[in-house]
C-alpha cells in the first residue's frame, strides 16, 4: 500500500487549480445533489425543493463564473482547459439558457413520469459539459466535453417517455448525433496523427512551422472535425436532425437546445478555428463560406410552409447558424466579436417563442400555427413578446437582432466577404416570410380584422381567455423580460458589445 502511495506520489500529477475549477465543481456537485434530493417524496420536494436546488446550483456557478473568476485568464489542468472571458461569457450564456428552460419546465405536466430530479440533474450536467467545452483547448477535452453534454441531451429529448414523438426524437438524435460524434472523433484522431499533439496551441505551432498544411491526413482530419462540429451547430447539410428533434423533444428542452447547443458548438468553433487551425485559414475559409451559404439558404427555405412552430424555430436556428458562421469565416477579431455578440443576442430573441409555445401547449392549443390564432387579443403580453422576438430574429431595427446582423455584416465586409453579407441579407429577407407569418397568425386572424371596437372592449373587460395566460405568470414574465431585453439591447447594446469584445480578445490574443 505504501509503495503504491509512493509510486503515486512520484507520478507527475497535473497541477490542479482548484480555485479556478470551483464553478465546474459546483455544477457537478449540484447535479448529484439535485438527483438525490429528488428521492425525497412529496409534492413540495418535487415541485419546490428540486427546482430550487437546480436553480441555486446554476446561479451559484454563475456567480463564481462572473465574480469569482473575474478577469482571470488562465490555463487550467496543464492546458486541458482555459478559463478566460470567452469561456466565462459562454458559460453564463448556458446557465441563463438552462434557467429559462427550468422556468419553462417548472410546472410542466409532461415531465411527471420521467422524474423531476433526473430532468434537472441532467440539465445541469449538460451545462457542465457545455461549460467545459467552451473552455476546452485540447482535443481530448473537446471530445469528452462534447459527449458530456450530448449524451444527457439524448436522454432529455426522450424525457417525455409516454409520447412517441419524444422517444422518436431521442433515438434519432442519439443515432445521428453519435454518427456526428464519431465523425468528429475520427477527425480529431487524424488531426492528432498529423500534428502529434492534442493541444490547440501545439497544433497551431505544428501547422505554422511545418509544411504539414498540405498533408492529406491533416486536411481530412480537419474536414471530419468540421463535419462533427457542423452537425452539432446545425449547419446544413448536417442539420436534418434539428427540426425533427426540436419538434419531438419536450419544449423546455428544445428551448434550451436552441440556444445552448449552438452556443457551445460555436464557442468551440471559434476557439478551434481561431487558435488551432488558424495557420491553414486559406484552406478552410472557402469551405466554411460555402457551408454558411448553404445553411442560410436551406434554413430559410425549410422554415417556410411549416405547420409546427417548433419545426419552424428549428429551421430558423439552422439559418441563424449560417449567419453566425459568417463571423467565423472572416476569421478576424471583428468576426469573432460579431459571432459572440450575435450569440448573446440570440439568447434574448429565442426565449419568448418557446415561452409562448409552452403556454399554448398547456392551454391545449398545440404548438402549431393554429394555436396562435387570436393570441393578440387573448394574451397581448405574450403576443407582443413573440412579435418583438420575431422582428428581432428577422433582424429589423430597433431590436438587438438588427445590431447583431449589422455587426456580422460589418465583419463580413471588413473581412472582404461582402458577398456573404449580401447572402445574409437575402436570407433575412426570406426569413421575414415565415417570421411574419407567425406574427400574422397572432394578430391577423380572419376574426381579428373583422372584430369591432366593441368586441375589443369586451376582451379588455376580461371576458376572454386572457385568464388562460394568467395561469402562467412565470411564462409571461420571462417572455416579456426577454423581449424587453431584445429591444433594450437594440437601442443600447453597449454592455453586450463590451462582453463580446472581451470574449473575442481573450482567446485571440493567444495567437496574436
Amino acid at each position, binding site marked *: 500500500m505504501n509503495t503504491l502511495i509512493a509510486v503515486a506520489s512520484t507520478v507527475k500529477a497535473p497541477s490542479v487549480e482548484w480555485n479556478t475549477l470551483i464553478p465546474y465543481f459546483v455544477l457537478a456537485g449540484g447535479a448529484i445533489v439535485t438527483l438525490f434530493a429528488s428521492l425525497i417524496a412529496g409534492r413540495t420536494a418535487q415541485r419546490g425543493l428540486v427546482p430550487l436546488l437546480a436553480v441555486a446550483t446554476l446561479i451559484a456557478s454563475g456567480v463564481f463564473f462572473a465574480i469569482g473568476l473575474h478577469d482571470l485568464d488562465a490555463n487550467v489542468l496543464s492546458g486541458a482547459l482555459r478559463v478566460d472571458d470567452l469561456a466565462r461569457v459562454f458559460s453564463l450564456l448556458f446557465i441563463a439558457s438552462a434557467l429559462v428552460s427550468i422556468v419553462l419546465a417548472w410546472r410542466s405536466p409532461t415531465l411527471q413520469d420521467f422524474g423531476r430530479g433526473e430532468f434537472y440533474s441532467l440539465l445541469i450536467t449538460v451545462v457542465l459539459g457545455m461549460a467545459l467545452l467552451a473552455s476546452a483547448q485540447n482535443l481530448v477535452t473537446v471530445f469528452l466535453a462534447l459527449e458530456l453534454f450530448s449524451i444527457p441531451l439524448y436522454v432529455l429529448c426522450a424525457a417525455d417517455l409516454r409520447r*412517441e414523438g419524444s422517444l422518436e426524437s*431521442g433515438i434519432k438524435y442519439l443515432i445521428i448525433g*453519435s454518427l456526428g460524434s464519431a465523425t468528429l472523433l*475520427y477527425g480529431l484522431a487524424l488531426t492528432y496523427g498529423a500534428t*502529434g499533439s492534442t493541444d490547440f496551441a501545439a497544433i497551431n505551432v505544428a501547422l505554422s512551422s511545418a509544411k504539414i498544411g498540405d498533408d492529406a491526413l491533416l486536411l481530412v482530419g480537419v474536414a471530419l472535425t468540421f463535419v462533427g462540429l457542423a452537425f452539432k451547430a446545425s449547419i446544413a447539410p448536417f442539420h436534418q436532425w434539428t427540426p425533427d428533434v426540436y419538434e419531438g423533444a419536450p419544449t423546455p428542452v428544445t428551448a434550451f437546445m436552441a440556444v445552448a447547443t449552438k452556443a457551445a458548438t460555436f464557442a468551440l468553433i471559434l476557439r478551434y478555428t481561431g487558435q488551432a487551425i488558424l495557420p491553414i485559414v486559406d484552406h478552410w475559409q472557402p469551405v466554411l463560406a460555402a457551408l454558411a451559404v448553404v445553411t442560410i439558404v436551406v434554413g430559410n427555405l425549410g422554415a417556410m410552409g411549416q405547420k409546427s412552430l417548433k419545426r419552424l424555430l428549428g429551421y430558423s436556428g439552422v439559418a441563424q447558424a449560417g449567419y453566425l458562421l459568417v463571423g467565423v469565416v472572416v476569421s478576424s477579431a471583428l468576426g469573432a466579436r460579431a459571432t459572440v455578440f450575435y450569440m448573446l443576442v440570440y439568447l434574448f430573441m429565442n426565449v419568448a417563442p418557446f415561452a409562448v409555445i409552452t403556454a399554448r401547449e398547456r392551454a391545449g392549443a398545440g404548438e402549431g400555427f393554429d394555436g396562435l390564432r387570436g393570441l393578440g387579443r387573448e394574451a397581448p403580453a405574450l403576443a407582443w413578446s413573440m412579435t418583438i422576438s420575431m422582428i428581432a430574429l428577422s433582424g429589423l431595427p430597433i431590436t438587438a437582432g438588427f445590431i447583431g446582423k449589422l455587426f456580422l455584416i460589418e465583419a463580413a465586409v471588413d473581412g472582404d466577404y461582402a458577398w456573404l453579407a449580401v447572402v445574409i441579407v437575402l436570407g433575412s429577407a426570406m426569413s421575414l416570410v415565415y417570421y411574419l407569418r407567425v406574427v400574422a397568425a397572432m394578430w391577423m386572424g380572419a376574426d381579428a380584422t373583422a372584430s369591432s371596437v366593441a368586441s375589443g372592449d369586451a376582451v379588455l373587460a376580461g371576458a376572454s381567455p386572457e385568464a388562460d395566460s394568467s395561469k402562467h405568470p412565470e411564462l409571461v414574465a420571462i417572455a416579456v423580460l426577454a423581449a424587453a431585453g431584445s429591444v433594450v439591447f437594440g437601442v443600447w447594446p453597449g454592455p453586450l458589445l463590451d462582453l463580446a469584445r472581451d470574449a473575442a480578445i481573450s482567446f485571440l490574443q493567444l495567437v496574436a
Partner: protein
Amino acid sequence: MNISWYIALSAVLFSIGAGGLVARRSPLVMLLCLELMLNGANLSLVAFARMHGDGGGQIFALVVMVVAACEVVVGLGLIVALYRNRLPIDIDELDHLKDPQKADSAL
C-alpha cells in the same frame, strides 16, 4: 509495420460502421455500427500514439471507450423505452417527425 496500414484499417472499420448505419434498420444494429466507427477512430488514435511516442493518444482512446459505453447505455435504454411503448423497433418506421410535404400556406 508502416503506420498507413493501421490508418487504412481504421478507415475501413470506420467506413463499415458508417455503411452499416445507413444500411441497417434495427436501432440495435445501428448502435453496433456506431461502436465500430468509434473503435475505428480508437485504432487510429492508438496507432498514432505509437507513432508519436506519446501517451496522449492512448489516453484519448481510453476516454473514448468510456464515452462509447455511456452512449450505448443510453441507446439501449431508449430502445427499451421504445419497446415498452409498443413502438416498432425499426428506425424507418419512426418517421412521424418530418416536414409537411404540402406547405401550410403560400409564402
